[in-house]
């Protein structure tokens, strides 16, 4: 079971070089960056939504906090955006507690409703608050003042930074999955009452999962802001940011290690393709397809593509 992993790793490392000879090298490299970013966000969602089975539909909350804080530090005090990353994580953790602490003693639907309500609340407040740029949002430094501003002309350096972050997050997720926390979370997902009766501190571990998830997602937001150099309320806190994380993880396989990466590899090129082919009206169509995919997964294959794959392999082996 080790060689597919090595092959996948090698492919991901070699990707910018592999496409560099083609006519649309810059486009494909940029797409690679988008895929990695989407995979990082969905990996974050996957901890609480997949492993712990607590479905958040407002993860834009943490993505937005992670994206806003670095640029906020630059905007007001001209600090390097990189310094804002831990602040983004801190704000995300506070938001995670505010949402998770009250709802995790209730049945799961309350958590889902609270995530979407709080995300919308923050979206509206940020969109009307001049200190954080209101509807226009925030800008990063236009020209690099040093390496620490992380501004590069080519997308290749971003690709490798994002790849390194994704590798770290996947490693952390894997460690968690193998350890006690992983067992606890799977027990909680399978049946909360049963887990509690076996002595799992259910509420506490759901909260841990959400905090870890919020941290990862906040990092995804920070990376987005660092690369993009700007952020606005819709790209930070909009509902579609949350939707993208949910659908990517669920398509690949919620609660599996590679699910988010698989989902991102399929969905991001698909999204780019529909937007190019259908132009301006494509945005609507993209989300029709998103909605359709989510409904189909929920109805026919809640385990996502990874589970489907495992089943196909198992039938062939027999």
């Amino acid at each position, binding site marked *: 079971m080790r060689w597919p992993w090595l092959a996948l790793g090698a492919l991901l490392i070699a990707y910018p070089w592999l496409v560099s000879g083609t006519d649309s090298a810059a486009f494909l490299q940029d797409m690679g960056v988008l895929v990695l970013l989407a995979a990082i966000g969905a990996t974050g969602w996957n901890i609480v*939504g*997949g492993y712990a*089975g607590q*479905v958040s*539909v407002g993860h834009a909350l943490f993505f937005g906090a992670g994206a806003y804080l670095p640029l906020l530090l630059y905007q007001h005090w001209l600090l390097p955006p990189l310094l804002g990353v831990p602040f983004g994580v801190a704000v995300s953790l506070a938001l995670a507690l*505010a*949402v998770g*602490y*009250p*709802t995790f*003693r*209730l*049945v*799961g*639907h*309350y958590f*889902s*409703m*609270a995530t*979407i*309500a*709080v995300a*919308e*609340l923050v979206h*509206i*407040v940020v969109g*009307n608050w001049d200190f954080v740029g209101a509807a226009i949002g925030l800008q990063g430094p236009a020209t690099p003042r040093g390496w620490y501003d992380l501004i590069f002309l080519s997308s290749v350096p971003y690709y490798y930074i994002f790849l390194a972050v994704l590798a770290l997050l996947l490693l952390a997720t894997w460690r968690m999955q193998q350890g006690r926390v992983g067992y606890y979370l799977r027990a909680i*997902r399978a049946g909360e009452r049963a887990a509690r009766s076996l002595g799992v501190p259910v509420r506490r571990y759901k909260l841990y999962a959400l905090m870890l998830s919020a941290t990862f997602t906040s990092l995804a937001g920070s990376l987005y802001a660092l690369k993009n150099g700007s952020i606005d309320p819709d790209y930070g806190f909009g*509902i579609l940011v949350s*939707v993208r994380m*949910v*659908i990517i993880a*669920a398509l690949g396989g*919620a609660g599996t290690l590679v699910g988010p990466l698989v989902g991102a590899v399929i969905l991001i090129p698909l999204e780019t393709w529909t937007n190019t082919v259908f132009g301006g*009206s494509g945005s*609507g*169509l993209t*989300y*029709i397809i*998103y*909605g*359709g*995919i*989510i*409904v189909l*997964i*929920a*109805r026919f294959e*809640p385990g996502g593509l990874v589970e489907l794959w495992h089943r196909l392999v198992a039938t062939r082996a027999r």
Partner: protein
Amino acid sequence: MSLNLLQIVVNGLLLGAVYALFSSGLTLIWGMMNVINFAHGEFVMLGMFAAWLTQRYLAGGPLVFTLAAAVVLFLIGVVIYVAIIRDVMRGPMLAQILATFGLALLLRYAVFWAFSPDVRTLPAGALDHTLDLGGILIRLPRLVAGLVAGALALGMHLLLTRTALGSRLLAVAEDRQAAMLMGIRPDRLQALAWGLAAASAGIAGALMATFFPFSPLTGETYALTAFVVVTLGGFGSVPGAMLAGLVIGLIEQVSAYEIGPIYQDVVVYGLFVALLWLRPQGLLGKA
């Protein structure tokens, strides 16, 4: 109380009655099968568009387009139950939430694609008047919407508590297995519940379309409003949703007047979070 504020209060209560109507649909579905319908706001939006299409292409007046919205949404609700919810209901919670959430996106952007994101209004036709009740100005469409919605929400409550059909619905809600042993077919009743819930949202949408501009994206706000109302009223309680609907309508209108219309939703969602911290079982719910 100044006359101005009194006018806001009356309008808030009338709007609250409409909130009560579509929220009681959401709470009915929750009570019967423990499913939260994230597409409930889209049902309201579809009701608005069904009414608009009826008015535009069949030249129907307020009575006709409200009925049309009710019938169309009832059918949509039943179809969605049979095609999706019936199978997803027994699956993991992830599948349940994803199914209705995906449905919300699908419906929202299908309408967006078909009818463009333009903001529309629905002419109130024969209802287009303003009443002057001793200095309090009330738009007739709002008055009619509030009264009709209040009556229908009450009707829903009476249907559940006073009729044989209602007791069968409640029997399924209470214990599906036991209901089956009594010869009740839960499947049909759950389909009916989805139809009723969607129809209540559709009627509410048609009623509001005469005084609120709407677009394919308006549904999300109504879904969140319904969540807040249902939580405040206690999940599964129709009388709770009726009371909470009035409270939320009132709070929303008063805060729009006192703080500013941009922040009316912030106040309501903030109330929701406070509620989850302090009294998650709601006003009338049991702990």
